[in-house]
């Protein structure tokens, strides 16, 4: 069999695989559908070039296979052709880059009304913190983290007192409300990623990173840690539940506040001293 045929079948197979594959994106559940569109666009342009280049190659292989008496063309350069190709490629690149940059611009510019969520990562788990009534998260420091202060909130920060603490790896979000995810880590790099939301960012110890999205489908989603963080990396999962406003508020009301925790501790403290006195 002529090798060209096999190469041809490989190309054909790739196209067919792409068309009929059962494995593709999960349905997007956030505002980042634009990323999917850019991917589709890249598939069209990039895939088109791939197919064109390979088919041209296959054609040459058929047409110009070795013959004793044939002499190849002698043509070191073709300035015009090279120029056309350069510009065509540049055009393709611009067509890909432009939408990409536009989306990135909206990715790094968080809407003002976004709800800030503090996502705290460690080896190997997650917990979350929402701002209280004041709408602001308190500042934190890793050195403050202990049983009495699981988020390491700076005690002298007034904004921190009413923060909502969710010491579970499942986070609830309100549908159609933009959230700004503020990521931090107490030990190594992690990355909080829900494939359906498309967005991700590393949690880096020593700084706070962010990204935002707006969930637009209710349901339960799995959170994956997608930055290698040691042996437990593959098991570092969490969850997100996107709910309509009512249910969300119901859930929110049940959560513990930092001030509750402080009060509880103080109570325990006084009881302890009472016991000791007795």
């Amino acid at each position, binding site marked *: 069999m002529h090798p060209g045929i096999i190469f041809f079948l490989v190309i054909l197979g790739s196209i067919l695989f792409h068309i009929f594959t059962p494995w593709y994106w999960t349905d997007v559940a956030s505002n980042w559908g634009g990323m999917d569109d850019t991917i589709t666009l890249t598939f069209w342009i990039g895939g088109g070039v791939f197919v064109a280049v390979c088919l041209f190659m296959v054609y040459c292989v058929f047409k110009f296979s070795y013959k004793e008496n044939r002499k190849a063309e002698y043509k070191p350069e073709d300035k015009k052709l090279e120029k056309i190709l350069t510009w065509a490629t540049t055009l393709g690149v611009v067509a890909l880059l432009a939408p990409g940059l536009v989306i990135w611009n909206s990715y790094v510019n968080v809407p003002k009304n976004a709800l800030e969520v503090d996502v705290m990562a460690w080896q190997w788990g997650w917990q979350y913190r929402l701002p209280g009534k004041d709408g602001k998260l308190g*500042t*934190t*420091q890793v050195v403050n983290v202990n049983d009495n202060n699981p988020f390491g909130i*700076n005690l*002298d*920060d007034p904004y921190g007192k009413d923060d909502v603490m969710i010491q579970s790896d499942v986070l609830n979000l309100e549908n159609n409300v933009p959230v700004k995810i*503020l990521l*931090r880590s107490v030990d190594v790099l992690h990355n909080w990623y829900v494939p359906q939301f498309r967005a991700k960012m590393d949690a880096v110890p*020593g*700084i*706070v*990173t962010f990204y935002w999205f707006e969930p637009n489908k209710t349901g339960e989603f799995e959170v994956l840690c997608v930055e290698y963080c040691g042996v437990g990396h593959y098991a570092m999962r969490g969850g997100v539940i996107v709910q309509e406003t009512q249910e969300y508020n119901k859930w929110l009301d049940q959560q513990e506040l930092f001030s509750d925790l402080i009060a509880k501790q103080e109570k325990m403290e006084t009881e302890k001293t009472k016991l000791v006195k007795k």
Partner: protein
Amino acid sequence: MSNTDKKEQTSTHKIGIYLWIWGLLFVLSFFSYMVDWYQFQGMLRWSLILFFMFLKAGLIMAFFMHLFWERYALVNVLLWPMTAIACFIFLMVAEFKYTLFTRLFYFFVGG
């Protein structure tokens, strides 16, 4: 590759030029020391430091390392790669500012 014939009279530079540069280096070092001595601050300090630094570096490279007398082929090969370093420096300045900002903003009360 001993391509210099023994008898060939290699013309060298006059000793004066070396002594001049030598002297200049001392003077410039003295000046950059004075920047600290007089505790200049802010932009003035920085521009003086960098000015003296580049001047000294330039003199050493140009005259002590003979780059001034080398052919352009060598000079260019040596200097162009510095653009990569320049880019690295430039971006890392932006990076440290950003890091410092997030640290102050999220880790310190009132930040």
